[in-house]
């Protein structure tokens, strides 16, 4: 059953920026720290509306993070955002000790994340932060799938107590959730029902997962369950266990390295509770490079095609018909057939 419909394109960063500006009206304790890229990460919306609660500290992400902690420990809800390459890594020690160990009420925006930041190239394409952030105690970690969900997620993390990180992107991407789509931190959304294979995705890859599911239905009559795992931590264990017990094989998809991200998180849950074959779609342990977002996601296998092929492999593995030696060839031939 289809519970979604594409309604144009808009960037997830717009959802983040708009949410902060709106929250500023109703949360007098909300402050935002800027580190020079405010017009890109769209904290500029908040700055324009609430200039007395916006503080630039320049290109100094480490200090920005701990200044936010100081604000939080003085009763504020403090938001800091920069490109994810710098707001998750440059300030890694600050995140670990001062944000997470302190359980400070700091919210970090990881903007321009993933390969789709595009022409800026590998230095700016953060594809590893889920692995690091997922290992930090006390941190809530979200990766919304579209503009509207980014807006809801931003509000949700600002309204909860404690540290949180939200990962979002630069380009306009399909909008397919609506005002009525629930967003509850830690509770995955099932966007499409099905019991042949479960596709668990986050961020940009959720839309690609939906496309893959339609193709699987159309070409093979396969009913794929599509789960939007918008909260990476705490992860929705029940949704994963249900998926593994009912579908008996899983494909994960994320705009992130195949190591340590959503795929890893899902595998940790199934390994303990309900082991099933899992195929992990993501960046294959490599850095990216310059290009347009659509070129890059094709090159690095972050589209519905990779998910589609991986679902067929996962189902074969489930049925015991999969020949390991054929794997690479098969995926290539599935691609050729599309």
């Amino acid at each position: 059953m289809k519970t979604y419909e594409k309604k144009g394109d808009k960037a997830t960063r717009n959802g983040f920026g708009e949410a902060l500006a709106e929250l500023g009206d109703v949360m007098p304790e909300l402050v935002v720290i800027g580190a020079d890229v405010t017009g890109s990460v769209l904290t500029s919306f908040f700055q324009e509306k609430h200039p007395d609660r916006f503080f630039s500290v320049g290109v100094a992400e480490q200090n920005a993070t701990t200044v936010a902690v100081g604000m939080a420990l003085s009763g504020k809800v403090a938001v800091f955002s920069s490109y994810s390459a710098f707001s998750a890594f440059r300030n890694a020690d600050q995140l670990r000790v001062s944000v997470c160990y302190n359980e400070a009420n700091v919210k970090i925006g990881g903007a321009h994340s993933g390969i789709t930041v595009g022409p800026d190239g590998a230095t700016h394409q953060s594809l590893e932060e889920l692995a690091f952030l997922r290992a930090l105690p006390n941190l809530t970690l979200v990766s919304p799938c579209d503009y509207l969900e980014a807006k809801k997620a931003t509000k949700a993390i600002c309204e909860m107590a404690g540290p949180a990180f939200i990962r979002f992107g630069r380009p306009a991407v399909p909008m397919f959730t609506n005002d009525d789509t629930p967003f509850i931190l830690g509770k995955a959304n099932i966007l499409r029902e099905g019991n042949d294979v479960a596709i668990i995705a986050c961020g940009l890859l959720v839309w690609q997962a939906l496309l893959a599911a339609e193709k699987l239905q159309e070409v093979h009559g396969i009913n794929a369950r599509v789960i939007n795992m918008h909260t990476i931590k705490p992860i929705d264990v029940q949704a994963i266990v249900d998926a593994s017990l009912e579908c008996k094989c899983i494909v994960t998809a994320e705009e992130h390295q195949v190591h340590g991200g959503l795929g890893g998180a899902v595998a940790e849950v199934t390994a303990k509770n309900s082991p099933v074959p899992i195929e992990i779609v993501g960046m294959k342990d490599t850095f990216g490079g310059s290009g347009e977002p659509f070129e890059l996601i094709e090159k690095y296998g972050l589209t519905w095609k990779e998910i589609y092929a991986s679902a067929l492999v996962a189902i074969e593995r489930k049925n015991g018909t999969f020949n390991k030696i054929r794997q690479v060839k098969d995926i290539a031939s599935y691609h050729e057939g599309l």
Partner: protein
Amino acid sequence: MDLKIEFEEKIFENKRRSPDEFKIIANTLRQDIIKSLLLAGSGHSGGPLGIADLMSVLYFGGYLNYNPHEPDWKDRDRFILSAGHMAPILYAVLARAGYFPASELATLRKFGSRLQGHPGLDVKLPGIETSSGSLGQGVSIAVGMAMSHKLVDKDSKEVYSITGDGELQEGICWEAAMTAGTYGLDNFCWIVDNNDCQIDGRVKNVMSVYPLKEKFEAFGFTVFEIDGHNIVDIIATLDKFTRFHALRKGKPVCIIAKTFMGNGVSFMHDNYKWHGNPPNKEQAIKALEELSK
């Protein structure tokens, strides 16, 4: 030799005092440091002993507003020990201020203790404002607190922070200095414990951070260079800071306090080898004997 370690439950009030009284308090703090480190069997001796005079004036001289019976009192001033490894002096001060019983100093660094090796907010020791220990982060947090008070709440709370001088090798310190200067945080007092010692040797030899006065002035601070063991100097300088703040001078204050690591204990005096070690029993007996004179 037999040594019985006891912590007398004695609390000092936070009020104006004569210099001699501060020396007595500082020596009580030094004895607490030696005792707790001996019991811990590990930890940092030199730095905590070196800032005992500064801490006695700051906490027991009526400068820092706090209420040990209401640690989260919203009108309190803030003190951030950015050099978190100097935790033994902070714990001694908080105990002597009445935040918790002095007997708890015997638990330093032990399993289940609220007196963590470096201050931790998670164990909820009253009086601790933030976890610290990863150098440079504390002073940046202090800057954030000063901004919150001056620029958001627009109240008159003061924020004090102590960093080591070796700590200034961390780049984040200068990011924090840049921010404090730019925002004119006249409610912020940055005290540099200038003992010229760090684990590997003299700061000037490991990686020089000097000249300090010119650097902080260039970042927009009003800088005072003082003898960190001269009580009269410390009192006069903290008076200047509070006066400047009251006058809204629009500049943060930096106090470069010349101190000696291990001050008060002859065999630790100005010896960087005492940065990260506790005394053994014989050394503790000798130290306590010197400190009780």
